[in-house]
């Protein structure tokens, strides 16, 4: 006992409780929450997410070692219980319950913006989940939907996958397929979409190199489009086939009109490096918009004001709901 009394790595109170030294607490200005906040180190900052003072909206701020940023509401994300945070795979991941449901939702922050949130399939909890990185996986524990049992699951941190097949009738002339793929990934991945090339082939179909695309209206296809899109090789039903052709008649940069249940689009040789991402956006359910900074700008990818183009979170949510993107 004497040895213990003289060996003191930490101060010990008279009652024998370790008295870890904490600084005096300081109120974080203009930030309040109706439930417990969550905290995680990410990059060179300490990030916090929390609910609103009286709402289920989720707010985000960070501490750089000396001061907190102003908190910013994370768009389109709300929770009825405290969120949880963990840094993993170069991103800050958050899980939280639904606004009014026990569903568990997952999103990430890449250092500049939040992805859309995606429901973790078949996982429900009646209280706030907990999240941590361990080994090469992201681990989550949570209660049951109506029980106090504790459940555990892991994730590779990928929110949703877009599987594509690249089928070349005529190689592009104004961009390369690899640059179009890089461009597409640069837009899709920060929003949580892992773009996987699952098939790549050259097709010898000279009669379809100049493709009759009709008036390129959603749900309406020509006989030539249907003939071309029948060449899916080993693609699965929900994989998106992208066909590179010389041109279309009438002339389009690309066209995403495809038969129901056969996700496909064409991109012509003289298109832009963003056309492929634009056409796949259509296949995933996106419509044209008036914002000239957006990938889906109705004026075309060659007229986008500030490159790289944007995809907003509302569009990402729509893409995530598509049957052609899969968690």
């Amino acid at each position: 006992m004497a040895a213990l009394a003289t060996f003191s790595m930490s101060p010990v109170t008279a009652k024998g409780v370790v008295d870890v030294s904490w600084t005096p607490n300081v109120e974080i200005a203009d930030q309040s929450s109706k439930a417990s906040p969550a905290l995680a180190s990410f990059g060179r900052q300490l990030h916090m997410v929390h609910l609103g003072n009286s709402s289920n909206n989720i707010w985000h701020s960070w501490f750089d070692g000396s001061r907190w940023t102003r908190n910013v509401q994370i768009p389109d994300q709300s929770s009825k219980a405290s969120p949880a945070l963990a840094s993993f795979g170069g991103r800050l991941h958050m899980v939280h319950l639904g606004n009014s449901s026990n569903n568990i939702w997952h999103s990430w922050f890449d250092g500049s913006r939040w992805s859309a949130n995606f429901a973790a399939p078949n996982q429900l909890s009646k209280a706030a989940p907990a999240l941590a990185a361990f080994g090469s996986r992201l681990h989550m524990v949570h209660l049951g939907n109506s029980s106090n049992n504790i459940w555990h699951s892991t994730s590779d941190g990928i929110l949703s996958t877009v599987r594509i097949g690249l089928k070349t009738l005529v190689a592009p002339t104004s961009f390369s397929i690899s640059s179009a793929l890089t461009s597409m990934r640069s837009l899709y991945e920060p929003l949580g979409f892992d773009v996987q090339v699952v098939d790549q082939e050259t097709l010898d179909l000279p009669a379809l190199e100049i493709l009759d695309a009709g008036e390129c209206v959603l749900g309406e296809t020509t006989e030539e489009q249907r003939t071309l899109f029948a060449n899916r090789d080993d693609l699965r039903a929900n994989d998106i086939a992208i066909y590179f052709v010389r041109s279309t008649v009438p002339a389009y940069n690309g066209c995403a009109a495809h038969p129901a249940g056969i996700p496909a689009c064409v991109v012509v040789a003289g298109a832009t490096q963003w056309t492929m991402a634009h056409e796949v956006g259509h296949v995933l359910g996106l419509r044209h918009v008036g914002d000239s900074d957006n990938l889906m700008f109705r004026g075309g990818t060659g007229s986008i004001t500030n490159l790289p183009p944007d995809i907003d979170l509302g569009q990402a949510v729509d893409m995530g709901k598509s049957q052609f993107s899969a968690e």
Partner: protein
Amino acid sequence: MAVTAEDVLVALGAEEPDYREAARTLGIESLPHLALLVRDDDEMLASKAASLAAFVGGSQATEVLVAASEHPQLSVRAAVAHGAQRLDPLDAERVLTALLEDSEPSVTGLAIRSAAAVGTAELRARLTEIARSSKSNELLREEARRGLGEA
């Protein structure tokens, strides 16, 4: 209000131009601009201009398409060959006559299909020549026979 070159470029800049709507809103006033654009070195722009001219239609559009039919890029000539079927029969004849002898079989094939769709006596006579000629490649002969209802 007069249609400006900018108006036309905005319509053609789209990834998937709505030609029917652009022809309705821009109309024949777009044709002087399209006449310049079909000569442009940018083959996408020239192709789209030709496609729009075909949707606008009329004798002035025919002149635009005749000019476009001489563009060195085959995608432009393809747009003309396909679009010609939208013209009045005699205008279509003017545009298609040269394209039925285009050096690129893909363009000739489109011209054959348009000629069959237009179906004037003159164009059917040309299809008959192609279908019978030993100088034509077999695929084009077959396309011409199909156009004549023989295949």
